[in-house]
C-alpha cells in the first residue's frame, strides 16, 4: 500500500502554468526525491499530491483510486513541513495526538501510537514540552512523529532539513534514511540540496520549470545525465561543459584537441566532471591551460584551469596539489566518463 500515480498533472495559477503535465508513478515503499532549482515547482507538486493545492488538470491516484478532488484529510497522507508547522500552543504529546483526536480515535489507541512514535524518535523526555522549548532537530522529529502516528499511506517531506545547521542536517539525514529503512513506507521528499537528494533517494526526479528533466537513481543521474540541465545541476562542483565538433568517429574541442567518439549522432557539447580529468604535461591530453585559481579544501583541491577558447575547466585533485598559479598544464579526460550532448542539450548515447 502506498503507490501513487500522477497522470498529466498540471497546475495553473491564473494564466501561469507552474506544473506542465507531469506523468509519474511512485512505487510502494519507494524513497523519491524531487530536486530542482528554486521556483521550479517542487513544493507545488508535493502539495498537489497532499491535497493542499488543487490539481488544475490531470488525475492523481493513490493505491489505484482516483483522489484528484479529495480533501487532504481523505488521502491518508502525512506531510512534514519545512518550518515544521507544529502547533505552538500544544505540548509535543498533543501535537502528535492532534490528528488522531480530530479523527475521533479512542484514547487508548492514541496513547499507544503516540508513545510508540515518541519512542522511535527518542522524544520521550520532551513529551510535555512546548515546541518553542525544543531545539531545531527535536522539532523536526516531532513533525515527523506527528506524521508517523497517523500510519499514512505515504510521507511527504518539503525541505524538512533546510532550517537546520550543517551538523544537525547530517544527523537528521541519517535518521530519515533509517526511518525509511524501518518503516518501508513510500516517502516523497523535496529538497534543493544535492547531497540530501543523492544520499537519500531511491529515485530522484529532477524538475526544470515545472517539467521533469530526468527521473532515475542517483547513480544514473550522476553518470548518465540525460541533458545538460541535469548534468550541470547534479554534482558539485558542476560538470565542465565544452563546445566540440564531431566528425568521423572523433570529437574535437573547439580550439583544442579531441579524442575518439563512438556515437552516430552529432554532438556539439562535451561534458566531463572535475573528477574525471587528469593533469599532465602541456601538450598531453585533450587541451592545455594555465592554472588560474587553486581552491584548497583539505581533502581535495580544485584547480581551475583557464584553457582559453575552451573555457575555464575545474579539475579535482584528491588531497593537496603541488601546482602553482600560472603554471601551464595539459588536461586529459577519462574517455569512459565523457558525456555528449546534442544541440538541444540532450544526451547522445
Amino acid at each position, binding site marked *: 500500500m502506498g503507490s501513487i500515480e500522477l497522470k498529466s498533472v498540471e497546475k495553473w495559477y491564473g494564466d501561469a502554468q507552474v506544473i506542465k503535465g507531469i506523468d509519474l508513478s511512485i512505487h510502494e515503499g519507494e524513497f523519491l526525491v524531487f530536486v530542482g532549482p528554486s521556483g521550479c515547482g517542487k513544493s507545488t507538486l508535493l*502539495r498537489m499530491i*497532499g*491535497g*493542499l493545492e488543487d490539481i488544475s488538470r490531470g488525475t492523481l491516484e493513490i493505491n489505484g483510486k482516483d483522489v484528484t478532488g479529495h*480533501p*487532504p*484529510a481523505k488521502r491518508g*497522507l*502525512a*506531510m512534514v*513541513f*519545512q*518550518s515544521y*508547522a*507544529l*502547533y*505552538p*500552543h*500544544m505540548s509535543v504529546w498533543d501535537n502528535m495526538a*492532534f*490528528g488522531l483526536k*480530530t*479523527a475521533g480515535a479512542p484514547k487508548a489507541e492514541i496513547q499507544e501510537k503516540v508513545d510508540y512514535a515518541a519512542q522511535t524518535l527518542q522524544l520521550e523526555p520532551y513529551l510535555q514540552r512546548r515546541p518553542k522549548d525544543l531545539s531545531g532537530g527535536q522539532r523536526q522529529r516531532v513533525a515527523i512523529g*506527528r506524521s508517523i502516528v*497517523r500510519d499514512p499511506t505515504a510521507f511527504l517531506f518539503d525541505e524538512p532539513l533546510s532550517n537546520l545547521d550543517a551538523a544537525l542536517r547530517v544527523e537528521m539525514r541519517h535518521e530519515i534514511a533509517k526511518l525509511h529503512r524501518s518503516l518501508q513506507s513510500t516517502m516523497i521528499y523535496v529538497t534543493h540540496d544535492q547531497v540530501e537528494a543523492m544520499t537519500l533517494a531511491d529515485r530522484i526526479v529532477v524538475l526544470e520549470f515545472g517539467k521533469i528533466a530526468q527521473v532515475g537513481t542517483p547513480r544514473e543521474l550522476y553518470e548518465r545525465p540525460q541533458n545538460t540541465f541535469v548534468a550541470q545541476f547534479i554534482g558539485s562542483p558542476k560538470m565542465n561543459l565544452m563546445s566540440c565538433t564531431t566528425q568521423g568517429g572523433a570529437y574535437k574541442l573547439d580550439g583544442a584537441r579531441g579524442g575518439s567518439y563512438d556515437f552516430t549522432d552529432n554532438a556539439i557539447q562535451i561534458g566531463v566532471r572535475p573528477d574525471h580529468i587528469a593533469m599532465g604535461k602541456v601538450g598531453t591530453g585533450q587541451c592545455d591551460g594555465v592554472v588560474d585559481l587553486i581552491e584548497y579544501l583539505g581533502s581535495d583541491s580544485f584547480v581551475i584551469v583557464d584553457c582559453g577558447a575552451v573555457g575555464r575547466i575545474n579539475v579535482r585533485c584528491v588531497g593537496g596539489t603541488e601546482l602553482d598559479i600560472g603554471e601551464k598544464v595539459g588536461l586529459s579526460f577519462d574517455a569512459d566518463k565523457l558525456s555528449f550532448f546534442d544541440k538541444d542539450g540532450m544526451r547522445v548515447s
Partner: protein
Amino acid sequence: MQDNLNRPTAKTPMAKREERLAWGLLAPTLISVALVVVLPLVAIFWISFKPIELADLRPPTPIVKEALRGSAEKLRIEYRLRNSSRSEAIRDVKIVDELPLEVTLREPLPQSCALDKRQLTCSFERLEPGYNEKIIFPVTADNEDAAEEIVESSEPQVTGTADNILTNFEFTLENFARVFDGSQFISVLGVTLFYTVFGTIGALVVGLFAALLLDKSFRGQGILRGLYLFPYVAPVIAVAFSWLILFDPFSGSANALLIQMGVTDEAINFFGDRPLALIMVTVFEIWRYFPLSFLFILARMQSIDSEMYEAADMDGASPFQKFWYLSIPQLLGILSVLFLLRFIWTFNKFDDIFLLTGGNAGTRTLTVSVYEEAFAISNIGAGAAVAVVIFMCLVAFSLFFFRFISQEEGL
C-alpha cells in the same frame, strides 16, 4: 563568577558619546511631557486636597478704574477701587498714577494719598473682601473733554498682596469625603465598571467576528476593511450626534423602523431611560471601537503561519476544530493584550458618554463625574478628587498590566 568580578566598569568613550546624544535627543520630549503630563498630575493631587471652586482660581486682586466725571465745579477724578474677591482680604494695596498737567487738584489729598511731582500714590493697609469704594479728587481743567481723554488714557498701576488659595497651605479632606459620600459613588463606580467591562469585551468579540470575516482574500476585501474602520476614524462628535439622531425617540429612524416592523408599539427612548441608556452607550462604545480590535486581531491572524493550518488539514481537522483548537489559542495573546489596553482606555473614556447622554439616565461614569464636579458645579477640588480616584485605579490596572504584559507578546 571570576569573570563577572573582572567586568570593566568604566564607560568607554564611545558609550559616553552615545549616552549624551541620546539624552540630547530625548530632552525636548522629556521636558514637554514633564510639563504637560507629570506636572498636571502633581497639580491634580495638590488641588484635590483644596477647598477650591472655579471662581477661586482668580487670585484676589485689587481692581482700580479711573474716570474723569462731572463738569465745572463738580469735575472730579474718580478712582473706583474694588477687591475682586468676596472672601479674601487684600493687604498693602498701593495705587500709583500720573496726574496729567491738564488738571489741577482743587482740594487737599485724603490721608491715604500723596502727590510727588505729578505722581499720585495712594496706599491702603487692607481691602476687606468685597470692598468697593470710590476715591474722589475734585479737580479743575481748562478743556474738560481733552482732559477726560488724557486722564483716562493713563492707566493707574495697582498692587497688593493676598492669600492665594491655590498656593497656600490650607488643605481639606472634604473633597474626598464628598466623592465617597453616599450611594452616588457606588453607582458611578458600578456604571463605570459595566461600561468598561462590557464595552471592552463586546468590542473584542465583535472585532474578532469581523476579523474572521475578512481573514480571506477576495475582491473588495480592501474596501470592506476600510469601511469597517470608519466608525473609529470618524470624529466622535459626528458619529455621536448621528447616533443621537438615529435613535431619537420622536423623530429617530430607528424607532420609526422598529414601530413599522412591529417590534415595539411605542417609541423607545434609547438614550434617556435607565438602564437602556447605559446599554446604548456601551453599544456605542462597542460599535466605535470594534474596528480597532478587528484591525489588531486581523493583523495577528494574518501573521499566523499558514502552514500550521495546512498541517491541520493534513491532520483532518474540521473548520470549527481549526478555529477552536488552533486560531483561538493563537489569538489568546493578542486578545488579552487588547483586553487590558482597551479596558484601561474604555475606563478613561469621556467624550462618548458626555456627548451621548451627558452622564444622565444612569450613565454617569467616573470621568464624566470629573467634568460634572469641576465644571458643571464649578467645584474644582471635588473634580480633582474624582480625577485622583481615577488615577489611582489606573495605577492599579497598570501594575497589573505590566505584570501580565511582560509575559505576553510585547506591544
